[in-house]
């Protein structure tokens, strides 16, 4: 069957049908991206308050991507020009030239995506931000897998309600030999129920867990029933307490000696942990499992690039947490430099605003509070050596003693990148620069990934015309020209979205 109005225009609309179709589709696309742009504006104007992780604008970590964004803009603009020339070539009935322009378009799309890949990879694997408890932020890279706490567990207190506990996946090495005990409620004249199991696999543990959990549930149900029955008869009944937790301890393995479990819990699984001078250290899981034992290692070995105090009130910057960390590791001078730099910034602002008061938002925003970290060799006489915040020598940090010589110039001479050790207890949040790192990264990844999908989709369609267009061209060149025009319209739209994405994501 012949589809009407593929080549010729309908008399009432004056257009061939595909063109109406693509414009309706583009209208819906405008709404899709419009919603996201609106979300962007909302996040962007709200950011100065410092509620979220600061917008990375002005940070070196961000600036390095501006050039990638710039190159991608040029690439997309060029491809837009090429696609109209491909269309003109078809109108001139020059198939060979059409092919050349189309190859250029597809290559541009590929170049765009390669650039995007480099940028994503860099953000996701090369950069980690650390937010300390007082909201001061450090930008850099986590060097060691010390980002996970290492905890020697002597005993675990496991709630026997709900699902299997999260710690089961946290053992370093194989599943260790364990002994699990649950002691039931006490009743007069009866031995409490005792459910005990030794084993050395997750399966063994699950057997014990489910059996003990059933016991807890039955006992609780029984107590509730007694209470209900008593109420029916108009009596009072004091419910007996039902223990809902079991204890898991290390058992003697093949070697004969029992050793503490070594746990490496993920940041997200933990509520917190604490050290104690006279008792065991404690670790609290998010599923209410509590662990007694000893913190073995909890230092984050961090290659520091930048400091960001946007979120610390100006009056409190003097006592920001990170100064303590630097001081203890022989980088006390960083604070002096920061303060000096900041005084200059304030002076600049005073000159800029002349007699008018500096708006609070400008003051609180990056102008004053942002600085690049210029760590350098400590001046003579300054304390040297790092990572002894808790009296523990930093075994995890090979650079602790000679770290100050470990200068890694990234080609620009004065940016020394140094390793500092950060105690996990001081850390509020850390992560790579993925979507969950902050509002900027969330909206950045959402919008650029959606745009990237459009680039891939558009390139596939145009590549299809390039590879399989010949037959249609020989049959009816005008039909192919119309298809390319419609594909081109989509491609221009993709370019148009990027024209806005470039300034708002990289420059504003």
């Amino acid at each position, binding site marked *: 069957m012949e589809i009407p109005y593929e*080549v010729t*225009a309908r008399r009432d*609309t004056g*257009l061939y049908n595909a063109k*109406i179709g693509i*414009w*309706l589709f583009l*209208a819906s696309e*405008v*709404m899709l991206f*419009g*919603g996201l*742009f*609106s979300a962007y504006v*909302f996040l962007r*104007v*709200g950011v100065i*308050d*410092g*509620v979220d992780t600061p*917008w990375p*604008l*002005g940070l070196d970590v961000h600036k390095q991507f*501006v050039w990638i964004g*710039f190159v991608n*803009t*040029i690439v997309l*603009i*060029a491809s*837009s*020009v090429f696609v*109209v*020339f491909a269309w*003109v070539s078809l*109108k*001139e009935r020059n198939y060979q030239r059409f092919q050349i322009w189309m190859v250029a378009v597809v290559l541009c799309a590929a170049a765009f995506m390669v650039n995007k890949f480099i940028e994503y990879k860099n953000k996701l694997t090369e950069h980690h931000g650390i937010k300390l408890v007082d909201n001061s932020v450090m930008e850099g890279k986590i060097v060691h897998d010390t980002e996970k706490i290492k905890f020697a567990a002597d005993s675990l207190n496991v709630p026997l309600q709900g699902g299997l506990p999260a710690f089961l996946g946290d053992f370093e090495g194989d599943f260790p030999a364990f002994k699990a005990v649950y002691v039931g409620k006490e009743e007069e004249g009866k031995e409490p129920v005792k459910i005990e199991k030794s084993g050395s696999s997750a399966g063994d543990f699950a057997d014990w867990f489910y059996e003990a959990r059933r016991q807890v549930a039955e006992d609780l149900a029984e107590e509730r029933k007694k209470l209900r029955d008593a109420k029916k008869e108009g009596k009072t009944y004091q419910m007996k307490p039902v223990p809902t937790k079991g204890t898991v301890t290390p058992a003697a393995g093949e070697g004969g000696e029992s050793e503490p479990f070594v746990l490496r819990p993920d940041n997200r699984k933990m509520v917190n942990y604490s050290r104690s001078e006279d008792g065991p250290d404690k670790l609290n899981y998010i599923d209410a499992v509590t662990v007694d034992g000893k913190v073995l290692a909890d230092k984050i070995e961090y290659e520091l690039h930048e400091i960001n105090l946007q979120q610390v*009130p100006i*009056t409190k910057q003097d006592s920001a947490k990170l100064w303590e960390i630097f001081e203890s590791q022989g980088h006390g001078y960083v604070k002096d430099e920061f303060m000096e730099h900041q005084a200059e910034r304030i002076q600049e602002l005073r000159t800029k605003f002349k007699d008018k008061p500096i708006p*609070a*938002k400008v*003051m*609180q*925003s*990056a*102008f004053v509070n942002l600085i690049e970290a210029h760590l350098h060799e400590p001046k003579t006489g300054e304390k040297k050596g790092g990572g002894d915040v808790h009296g523990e020598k930093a075994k995890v940090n090979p650079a602790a003693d000679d770290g100050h010589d470990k200068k890694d110039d990234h080609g620009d001479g004065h940016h020394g990148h140094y390793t500092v050790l950060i105690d996990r207890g001081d850390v509020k949040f850390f992560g790579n620069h993925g979507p969950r790192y902050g509002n900027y990264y969330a909206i950045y990844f959402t919008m650029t990934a959606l745009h990237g999908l459009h680039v891939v989709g558009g390139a596939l369609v145009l590549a299809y015309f390039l590879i399989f267009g010949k037959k249609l061209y020989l049959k009816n060149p*005008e039909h192919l020209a119309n298809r390319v*025009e419609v594909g*081109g*319209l989509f491609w*221009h739209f993709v*370019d*148009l979205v990027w*024209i*806005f994405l*470039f*300034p*708002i994501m*990289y*420059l*504003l």
Partner: protein
Amino acid sequence: MADSLSPEELAKHKKSYTAVGIALLVFTCITLALGIWPPLDLGVPGATWEDVVIGLTVAGVKASLVALIFMHLNHEKSLIYKFLLFTFFFFLGLMFLTLFALWDPIREAIDSYYTRG
């Protein structure tokens, strides 16, 4: 577009496409300069409203060039303008959602909390 274009018309088209392409490249360089060249002040942390206005105006000009010339909106059939009129109306609505959010009293409270220093 008309079904068939004369060689003169096509030549004219090609000229305008090249010109627009060059203009877009120039504007992109301006955007970049606005962002990273200190005298133009854009992109310095704490970008002011002037910076945003200039930056988005340049982007708007670029977008208009693409839409008018590359997407042929400078001489299109009326039906398409009708579609786009609707789109524009709803798009504005979306953007105003943000403004409504800015009048949020809770936000104002947070504002004053964080800016009192």
